[in-house]
């Protein structure tokens, strides 16, 4: 698994920079953005909050004026787990390709020694009135398909089952998927005993 050493070092420098007089934080953030650009082709920008002496400092870097509109995936790292960052410190990366940031944030978290709970995907997406809940719906649908796969369906029968559930409830497949996910838990949801088909 390749880890961007430059990217990791840039992030470390940022979290220690607040204690160093005369350091230009915006330069360091720009440098970080350059490193991320090299690692993720569809990177569109980042938003960072660094808390120092209980005061938050916010910095944004965008590749272009339209970057926020292009963002289709986000990855957030809680930096408070780093000894040099105070609680509330975080960085969010944005990219135009769904899934593009998953490996990056996993690699960074590992390199920085962050717990898995300090990382999250797609929880900071800018509002996109044009897309509405489309991306969230796709994510929910695919998670529900995963649930059905775990319960013995193959991909084809999983999709048919989701359509069947939606039809029974008179709802969209997205709503049926949400309901399916909401019913998860030990002994909460059991598939039909009949072989899927």
């Amino acid at each position, binding site marked *: 698994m390749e880890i961007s050493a430059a990217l990791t070092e840039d992030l470390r420098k940022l979290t220690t920079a607040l204690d160093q007089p005369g350091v230009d934080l915006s330069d360091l953030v720009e440098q970080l953005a350059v490193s991320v650009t090299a690692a993720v082709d569809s990177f569109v920008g980042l938003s960072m909050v660094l808390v120092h002496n209980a005061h938050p400092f916010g910095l944004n870097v965008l590749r272009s004026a339209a970057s926020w509109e292009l963002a289709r995936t986000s990855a957030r790292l809680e930096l408070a787990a780093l000894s040099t960052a105070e609680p509330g410190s975080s960085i969010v990366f944005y990219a135009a390709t*769904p899934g593009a940031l998953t490996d990056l944030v996993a690699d960074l978290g590992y390199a920085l020694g962050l717990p898995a709970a300090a990382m999250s995907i797609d929880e900071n997406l800018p509002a996109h009135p044009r897309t509405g809940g489309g991306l969230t719906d*796709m994510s929910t*649908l695919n998670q529900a398909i995963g649930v059905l796969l775990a319960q013995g369906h193959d991909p084809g029968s999983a999709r048919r089952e989701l359509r069947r559930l939606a039809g029974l409830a008179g709802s969209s497949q997205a709503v049926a998927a949400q309901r399916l996910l909401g019913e998860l838990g030990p002994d909460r949801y059991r598939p039909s005993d009949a072989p899927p088909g």
Partner: protein
Amino acid sequence: NRAVIDQALGILMSRSGCTSDEAFGKLVESSQSQNRKVSSVAQNLVDEAVRRARARRQGSAGG
């Protein structure tokens, strides 16, 4: 890649009753311990679940 990762999250959520965030954490931990990309770990999970489902159907058909 995102679709496969979401399907893997669904598989983990179904098997352990955890939330999607917890499932993602498990995926990341597996990725780190196996030194593989998250998407690769997710693809393996999905492939394994599909293999099991097809083996079960063949077993049912056989009797």
